């Protein structure tokens, strides 16, 4: 981190491409001190990206550091900062503060079956988990990916599905709420898909990211119908943060701060607090 932790490093956009409707992938080459700061980071960590002239916002890092020196972020256009980021192109410079927050305990997951549930842009911070498992395939049991979006045009990382499906002991299940004419996969909410796939809780860990309402119902289903214990359910939470350092006060979930106590939480530790986050 910079001596002044609110001062960003600079990063150059080496690639900008559409990931889904109004969602772009920004691929950054870190400049100056930033390349040292981002030499290592863990699946689940996040960073603030500045669109200079607009401000900054937090985003989950969307790749593992094992996949090379560039850092990926998926940015949905929802407000002024993300609109500013969408206006940028290759060669433009953004600010980056991070890596911040805790991460998924991938070492602890060794030998477990992993069930990854991503809703919409919530898939972005789960991509490094998938990459990590694929890159260390023998260390893990089965990998079951449940991937959902409101509409087919909102599914993220579609060009990587073949790689995921081709990996050993790995399955990908897709669903959308509102299909279009070409859609041949599941239709419905991720909870319906989860009931259908019905993964066994035996030696299994779930990792969920999506809108709060999805996290709520997925967790309920896992625990009440599928026999999972809260201890084996992990979530990564989104919150509107303005510092990422435990100062600005905005991201509290009860007495926890999503930025420094999370964004990754074990449901045993926060189960009762989720209602304060809804």
């Amino acid at each position, binding site marked *: *981190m910079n001596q*002044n932790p609110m*001062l960003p490093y600079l990063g150059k956009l080496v690639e900008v491409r559409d990931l889904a409707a109004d969602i772009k992938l920004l691929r950054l080459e870190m400049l100056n001190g930033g390349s040292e700061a981002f030499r290592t980071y863990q699946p689940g960590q996040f960073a603030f990206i500045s669109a200079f002239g607009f401000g900054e916002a937090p985003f989950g890092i969307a790749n593992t550091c094992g996949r090379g020196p560039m850092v990926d972020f998926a940015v949905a256009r929802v407000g002024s900062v993300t609109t500013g980021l969408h206006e940028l192109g290759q060669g433009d410079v953004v600010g980056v503060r991070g890596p911040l927050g805790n991460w998924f305990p991938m070492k602890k997951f060794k030998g477990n079956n992993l069930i990854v549930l991503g809703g*919409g842009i919530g898939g972005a911070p789960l991509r490094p988990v998938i990459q990590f498992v694929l890159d260390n395939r023998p260390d893990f049991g089965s990998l079951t990916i449940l991937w959902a979006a409101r509409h087919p045009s909102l599914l993220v990382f579609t060009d990587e599905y073949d790689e995921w499906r081709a990996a050993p002991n790995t399955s990908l299940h897709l669903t959308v709420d509102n299909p279009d004419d070409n859609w041949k996969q599941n239709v419905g909410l991720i909870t319906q898909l989860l009931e259908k796939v019905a993964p066994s809780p035996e030696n299994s860990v779930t990792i969920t990211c999506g*809108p709060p309402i999805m996290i709520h119902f997925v967790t309920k289903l896992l625990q009440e119908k599928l026999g999972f214990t809260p201890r084996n359910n992990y979530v990564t939470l989104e919150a509107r943060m303005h510092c990422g350092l435990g100062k600005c006060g905005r991201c509290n979930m009860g*007495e926890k701060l999503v930025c420094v106590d999370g964004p990754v939480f074990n449901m045993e530790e926060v189960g009762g607090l989720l209602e304060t986050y*809804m």
Partner: protein
Amino acid sequence: MSKSVTDNKHWLISQTELESWLDQIANARTLIAPREVAGLTLYRPVEKSAEIAWSDKPLRSAPSGRPVLSVKEIFFPATERMFSIQKSGQDIALKESFPDWETVVFGVRPCDAHGAKLLDVLFLDTNPIDMFYARRRENTTLIGLACKSPGSTCFCTSVGGAPDDVRDMDIMLFENEGGYLAEAMTEKGRFLIPGGEWKETTTDLPSANFEIQFPIPEKGKWPEHFNDDYWMKISERCLSCRACAFVCPTCRCFAVRDELMAPGEFERIRCWDACAGENYRRVAGGHKPRPEKGERLRNRFYCKFFYYPEQYGIGNASACTGCGRCIDVCPAGVDITEVLVDLEKPA
């Protein structure tokens, strides 16, 4: 923080001596004191002691009451520049600047000094240190003024404070028969005391206490009230105007954004924000956690008495200083002491 001094020396000074001392301070550094601004008393820089909002009756004496905004704004201003941004084509240059003025604040009430101490826990004692707050805090000396009588909404004694609480001051003054008794609490404060000019005294420092005791639910009891209907009922009054947070000595939520200063020139600023605002937590996908006013108002009370103490490890202490400002400014009659009393009533 400056080291404390324990020699127990104190001095007896007249109003005239106090004023000439403050004039000397104002000549050398920035002196901030209660001043009348557009009909409000605020902590503002003064060039000479005559600009201070002294009470006139019966003789000129200590400023009465407490300023509308707390000393928070001296260490944590409503808007602060964090760095400037120069943008030219694809070139970006960032330039840092930090506040470097040396200030002395006169007329600080114990509740406000305590509020600063509570913010220290977050900005100084919890890593990473906030460099802006740290600079301002290190370069500020607090001259406190003990309270002789409580204001109509004061309740510091309910939350562990006291009208003569010297703990968080550098120098403390006690009003005493037309003059003041002064004691230096820290080395930083001692440095400001004019050595031979003031008369040392053995007069005992006056002590004061107010008989104001509102019940504060124990920290461990807060979670069980979380789902009470009470929060939705009391919030019927709330306008979500956020005034309570802005006047609060310990509310510290902030927002960060860029402001355009000139073509290609921006400043990254942070400014006060508050959890009562409806869009305060809007996230991607348009979801707004805490959509109900009651949920947001509840968060404010929980932050003072449960969340903040848990987050920053202040044990059973609360993050409320009992200054009563939020009661004074609420246009809709939300009264923190009423809420505390209601919570202690049997359901």
